[in-house]
């Protein structure tokens, strides 16, 4: 069906990953992470999503 779903999927994850990672880096050691058990969840999860999105895009574009 014309559009490969993996492309929008990969882009969403990369874009959201970049937003979260950047925000996490900008709020390094901020008090907002008290509620997430002291973990900079924005940075950790942003990088995870970035990686997942990147892999999806590479796989989708390889063929």
């Amino acid at each position, binding site marked *: 069906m014309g*559009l490969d*779903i993996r492309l929008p999927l990969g*882009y969403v994850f990369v874009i959201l990953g970049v*937003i979260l990672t950047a*925000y996490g880096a900008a709020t390094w050691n901020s008090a907002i992470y008290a*509620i997430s058990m002291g973990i900079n*969840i924005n940075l950790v999860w942003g990088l995870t999503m970035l990686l997942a999105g990147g892999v999806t895009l590479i796989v989708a574009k390889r063929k």
Partner: protein
Amino acid sequence: MHLSWVDWLIMLVYFVFVLGIGFALKRYMRTSNDFFLAGRALPAWVCGLAFISANLGAQEVIGMGASGAKYGIITSHFYWIGAIPAMLFVGLFMMPFYYGSKARSVPEYLRMRYDEKTRAVNAFSFAIMTVFSSGISMYAMALLIQTLGLLHGIVPEAWIFHVSVVISAVIVLGYIFLGGLTSAIYNEVLQFFLIVAGFLPLVWIGLRNVGGWEGIKRTLPAEMTHSWHGIAHANTNTLGVEVVGLVMGLGFVLSFGYWCTDFLVIQRAMAAESYDSARRVPIIAAIPKMFFPFLVILPGLIAVSVTAHAMGGGSPHGIIPAKIDPLSGHAVLGTDGQPVWNYDLAIPVMLLHFFPTGILGLGLTALLASFMSGMAGNVTAFNTVWTYDIYQSYIKKNASDAHYLWMGRVATVGGVLLSIAAAYAATSFNNIMDALQLVFSMVNAPLFATFLLGMFWKRTTGHAAFTGLISGTAAAMLHHGLTLPSDAVTGLHGGWIHVVHIYPSDMAQNFWTAIFAFGVNFIVTIVVSLVTKPKPESELIGLVYSLTPKVPELHLPWWKKPWTLAVGVGIVVAILNFVFA
């Protein structure tokens, strides 16, 4: 609730992609086949994820979180007993007939197998039910946005509910109107991954807070952390259902009635690119489905295990807030004088409790996405059944394909408008799950007997199927009117004819309503079949098991064979049941 710009940015990115997918697909919508059936051209894994995502609406994310908080890990029976076996069955045994017959919808299969009147009963009842379900999703979402104060300070307080309904309606309408079923399916896949991405870190942080699964087991009573604890008797487990009602009612009748006959999910499998793919769709769907309790039920358990706030007597409620009467603004008190806990807020309060700004936007996006796909799934099923099974069959028979494509778009608008009406009419049930189960048990429960006999007994006749369906639904209503859950008053909860039996819980009553409906339909269909004239065998090829040639699977590698996948899923589910027993 305070949201910062980054939370809004994340939600905005999601909505841009949702509508973007619709626009990108618009140019591929040339025929009604493209619009209603996604051109039957999608890979199995895409349809498989859409298969579970379409069902992942309000009833699942909010309802399962609520049940997890209220009843405990026993809620996983809704997955491991109440979904997986039926999903494997429909893939292995029923998709060959749905896909192979080239029927464009489930009601259309009934017309091919039986007759016009059986199709009509199914088409009309299904159309009404989808609109109702879609409306419930919309209502639940608007209520949640209002309760969380998501639009607080942006929109006047009194308008929040209406604005939420309109925004969600416009977005869902937009992407289905543009890209039809393909757009709905693509968005369901996107939504599936967003739910995982949004809830996985929630479970991770939450588990760290409560000391992992072991910590939950130490905090909560044993019956909340063991799925088979006290299941032999209704009074010794938290669900209030005994094992026969659970396995027969939920595991067989309700679950098979839903996963094997509901066009909302079957439509996703029908969109697959080939016969083999169509069979694999529900089985592939079962793989993530069996792990979903950890994403949607576990947050509920964590919410009641966060002990810092669990002071006072009664059942553990952790961070679950008390239910507030919207009229008086005071907490609702139960008959024992204790506050009534608003379990439906289990997952939303978990997000607020553990997520700082940033990832909070992602969590809320996941939540909104689930509501939207719940709506969209129903709307795409509605527009197809309306156009093919009602409009083309009874209103305008021999129009051009372009006309039916146009009608599909009109039906999409109509379906969304009716959903809005249903959202405003949504009732005041305290648990969305119970309300939906009630509707399912009346309409869906007898249905599976009709399909089971139709697909596996060539003697079954159209008159029998029709009579059986009507009798089954009548039996459901009669049973509901004659019985009552122990803690309810007569009326909407049952007993409106005369109370002859009291069930220990409304869930037990629902399960038994389903068992009676199925049983009556099964028996009536067999009896009437024996005294009416069956269709000639030549007309039933491809529609009935014994008259359909088996398609060999030799061309598939072993790991792609439906049976291999199904056995694998079965083993893992058995292990999960064992671990959490």
